[in-house]
């Protein structure tokens, strides 16, 4: 079982031009350690593409294909079919895409690829906005977040909708494996990547990847933010296998969400009543759904 203690030393992404403290970069780095060299990474216009595949700096040390934004999963489909023809179907075909490219513009092609049931791993590194273009709201942005397209102002125009529950959409396709992860829980994440590799069909992992400039915190707090999200119950570590959704981490007592919200400037638009209603909504979700899920063995 892959864990910090036994991950290989070799870095398969190095010299990325990502921001200091980039959660997404860490998610890619760790995933590649588990996946190994017989992996082709497919990415689309997003922070990772801009920081690892743009001349003069090419930072990824495995074959890497950039795709157009709506079509990552379709490109992965073509690659998987091609590798099968070349008798290399044991290679990992791994999409590494942001939240926008996964659950907004990329949703259609991902749904199609999952429905076709090919063997691939789709990792969504979720920084909860279109960060590559400077923090515009996506379907994955949480309720109450400031983004440049929901900038608050006199109209209190923050993100008014809840975060899209992509894991349940993916699970509804009844694929081989699906999970949510956080870069603050590396061993949980590496184990999920391993399970994705073993899956005999499509596998999906959505890994929460905090973004210092976008979320509004000092770069040294990336892991702490990723931790608080889970500890407050606002991001739930789950996995879906054989028709069952289970928790892989159950906070013994959920911290109040203010600890998570206050750590980031993007929630500074919210007043105490707004925070209270989000707390109640979180509590309700845990009471009626998450709390009732079984834990993974």
């Amino acid at each position, binding site marked *: 079982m892959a864990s*910090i203690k036994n991950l290989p030393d070799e870095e398969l*992404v*190095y010299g990325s*031009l*990502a921001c*200091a403290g980039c959660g997404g970069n860490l998610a890619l780095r760790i995933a590649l350690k588990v996946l190994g060299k017989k992996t082709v990474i497919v990415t689309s216009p997003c922070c990772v593409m801009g920081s690892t595949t743009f*001349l003069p700096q090419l930072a990824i*040390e495995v074959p890497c294909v950039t795709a157009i934004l709506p079509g990552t999963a379709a490109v992965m489909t073509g690659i998987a079919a091609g590798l099968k023809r070349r008798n290399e179907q044991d290679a990992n075909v791994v999409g590494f895409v942001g939240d926008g490219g996964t659950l907004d513009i990329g949703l259609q092609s991902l749904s199609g690829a999952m429905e076709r049931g090919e063997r691939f791993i789709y990792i969504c590194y979720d920084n909860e906005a279109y960060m590559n273009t400077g923090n515009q709201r996506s379907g994955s942005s949480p309720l109450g977040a400031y983004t440049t397209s929901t900038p608050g102002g006199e109209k209190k125009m923050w993100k008014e909708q809840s975060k899209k529950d992509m894991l349940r959409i993916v699970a509804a396709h009844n694929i081989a494996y699906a999970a949510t992860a956080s870069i603050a829980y590396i061993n949980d994440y590496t184990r999920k990547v391993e399970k994705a590799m073993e899956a005999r069909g499509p596998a999906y992992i959505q890994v929460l990847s905090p973004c210092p400039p976008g979320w509004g915190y000092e770069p040294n707090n990336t892991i702490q933010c990723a931790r608080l999200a889970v500890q407050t119950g606002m991001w739930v570590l789950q996995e879906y296998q054989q028709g069952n959704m289970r928790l892989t981490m159950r906070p013994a007592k959920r911290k109040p969400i203010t600890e998570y919200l206050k750590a980031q400037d993007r929630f500074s638009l919210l007043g105490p009543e707004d925070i209270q209603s989000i707390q109640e909504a979180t509590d309700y979700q845990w009471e009626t759904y998450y709390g009732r899920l079984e834990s993974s063995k």
Partner: protein
Amino acid sequence: MGKSQERPVFPHLRSPVRPIKTGSWRTFKPVVDQEKCNSCLICWSCCPDGVIVKVEGELRVDYDYCKGCGICGNECPRAAIKMVRNS
């Protein structure tokens, strides 16, 4: 790409190519106190850029590419890493 390198014939190029040393970005740099460090590898596992390297039983920093984010200093359970103003 340096002047000596050819113009690409296809937009498909052998990787890696790393002329930009991102270490030039930082304001603060991490310094590992080897006495306090017990090689728990937490810093190694949470460095976004993988610049903490295992060398001769120690954990050292590749300052060519370290951006000085400070996550390692934050996460070290033994406070063995200090962020020091870049000289």
